[in-house]
């Protein structure tokens, strides 16, 4: 068992516990957001936002922000990624609101352009680093699918702050957010905020995705914001049961995925996604079974 070795060996334990704590914090806010993402059909927007982060990674390394392991580098990288992803989220929302423009077209364009841009910029940053001798940008594979090596206690702290922030904001706006999520076109007629809730949710999603990207990768991060909610909604139709199940699914999927990736020496993204996908398949079976029992 490599997992136990990693978490107990005096040389490795600190680095790997940072990964576990980061993963747990991410699982909590991703699980909470995933219910809203599934119900409001924001999965594809999330995908667009996380891919925009790839362009952000490329730009950050090209202009020399984010290289190295210090807190300054971490904050610099975070700032560039946040700018990219928030711009993508709000741009997609803005395009989607204008009648005539199709949201999925907008996302398709933003997603592809960010990926192309990120690839070109990362290549360029790598070539420059080789010439100047400055720290090389991370391997593209790690950016796409996530990596354990780049995650530090700084990232764990960042994930914890994000977790507190996202869950705190969701708690504060739980009533208008719920009303908006259930009946978007009607809530304003009742004096509840409507469009402001959409923008707030997209911003929370953008921030959460950016914090997740380093561990789970640009391509697979959104799975954490979709699969837990999808699993929970298969199994229950009581709001707080669904939220609880989504949180539990995200935590189990994250820890299981970390074990898989430690054992198989895989990137974290694929490990987490495969574990969550397996849980979803089981939930499909259980959901179908209980429905058959219920109908006789």
């Amino acid at each position, binding site marked *: 068992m490599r997992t136990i070795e990693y978490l107990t060996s005096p040389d490795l334990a600190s680095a790997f516990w940072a990964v576990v704590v980061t993963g747990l914090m991410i699982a909590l806010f991703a699980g909470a957001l995933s*219910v809203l993402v599934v*119900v*409001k059909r924001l999965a594809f927007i999330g995908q667009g936002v996380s891919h925009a982060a790839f362009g952000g990674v490329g730009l950050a390394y090209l202009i020399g922000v984010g290289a190295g392991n210090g807190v300054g580098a971490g904050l610099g990288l975070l700032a560039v990624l946040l700018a990219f992803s928030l711009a993508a989220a709000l741009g997609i929302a803005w395009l989607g609101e204008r*009648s*005539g423009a199709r949201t999925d077209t907008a996302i398709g364009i933003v997603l592809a352009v960010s990926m192309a841009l990120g690839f070109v910029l990362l290549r360029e940053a790598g070539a420059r680093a080789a010439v100047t001798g400055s720290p090389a940008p991370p391997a593209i594979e790690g950016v796409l699918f996530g990596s354990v090596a780049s995650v530090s206690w700084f990232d764990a702290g960042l994930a914890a702050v994000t977790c507190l922030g996202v869950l705190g904001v969701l*708690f*504060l*706006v*739980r*009533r*208008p957010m*719920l*009303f908006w*999520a*259930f*009946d*978007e*076109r*009607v*809530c*304003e*007629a*009742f*004096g*509840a905020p409507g469009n402001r809730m959409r923008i707030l949710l997209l911003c929370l999603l953008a921030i959460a995705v950016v914090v997740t990207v380093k561990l789970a990768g640009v391509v697979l991060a959104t799975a954490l914001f979709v699969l837990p909610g999808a699993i929970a*909604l298969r199994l*229950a*139709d*009581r*709001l707080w*049961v*669904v939220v609880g199940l989504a949180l539990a699914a995200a935590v189990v999927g994250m820890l299981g995925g970390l074990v898989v990736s430690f054992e198989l020496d895989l990137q974290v993204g694929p490990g987490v996604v495969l574990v969550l996908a397996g849980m979803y398949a089981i939930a499909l079976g259980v959901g179908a079974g209980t429905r058959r029992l219920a109908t006789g």
Partner: protein
Amino acid sequence: MPETPQPPALEFHGVGYTYPGAAIAGAQSAEAIRGVTLDVRVGERVGILGPNGGGKSTLLKIALGLLDGYDGEVRVFGRSPAQARRDGLVGYVPQRVEAELGFPVSARQVVQMAATVGVPAWRPSGAGVRARVDECLEMVGAADFASRAIGKLSGGQLQRVMIARALAREPRMLMLDEPTVGIDAAGQERFASLVERLNKGLGLTIVVVSHDLRTIATSCDRVACLRRTLHYHDAPGGLTPAVLAEVFSHDIEAVFGEVHIDAHAAADCDDPSHQHHHGHHHHDHDDNDHECGGGHP
């Protein structure tokens, strides 16, 4: 002009609205309504009948304070529509297809969403809110299935929950949009008697907007027919078979005979006395000028 003891529940004076250019691609004209003058008094049950695309939802949105930039004047209980919305004076029952029925909430939670609008986040929804939610569910006969998931209700049950939600903020007027779409005959009868109960029992002013003549005939005392502008207003003495026949023929005309209707509307303006045949007689103020002036600038 005699003094009115209290302002009408809903006043439209020469109200027009044109959607901005790009909003409706390919449409010849984006004008939704024009020269609409309407006067709903407190305690009345008024139906607004019109074909799909006739401007009914535009009229509703303006009354609910959701659409700005209209011409003319709109007052809801003497206030601006936006103010009336903030004050929770108007309960709104939308067409049911608009809500997210896959959402994991119970009927009770749906009513509670409206009951807790404006309650600060740090304050738990207390016993007062819970009592109000139960009262609303009881009023519409939805107490039996209050804890069932919203997606598992029948069309009629869902509609009652939507009405309970509209009652949650203790409004003085209910506006219902196509309330009987997808509801069976028995459900429609229950709906009509519920509307009567809310109207007579609670003194709620009722405005029903529908393309379905039967819905309006069974639940309202007065009818206005809307196809861009109001073609007919008032049915004094209730809906007699003769009045129904006239409204019905107007509806047919509105759907099939645009040219004829426009000529008819113009004739109304040229000859105000013509309108009095249609029953414009018990208004406190003469709004014929508004209607004609707004309709044909």
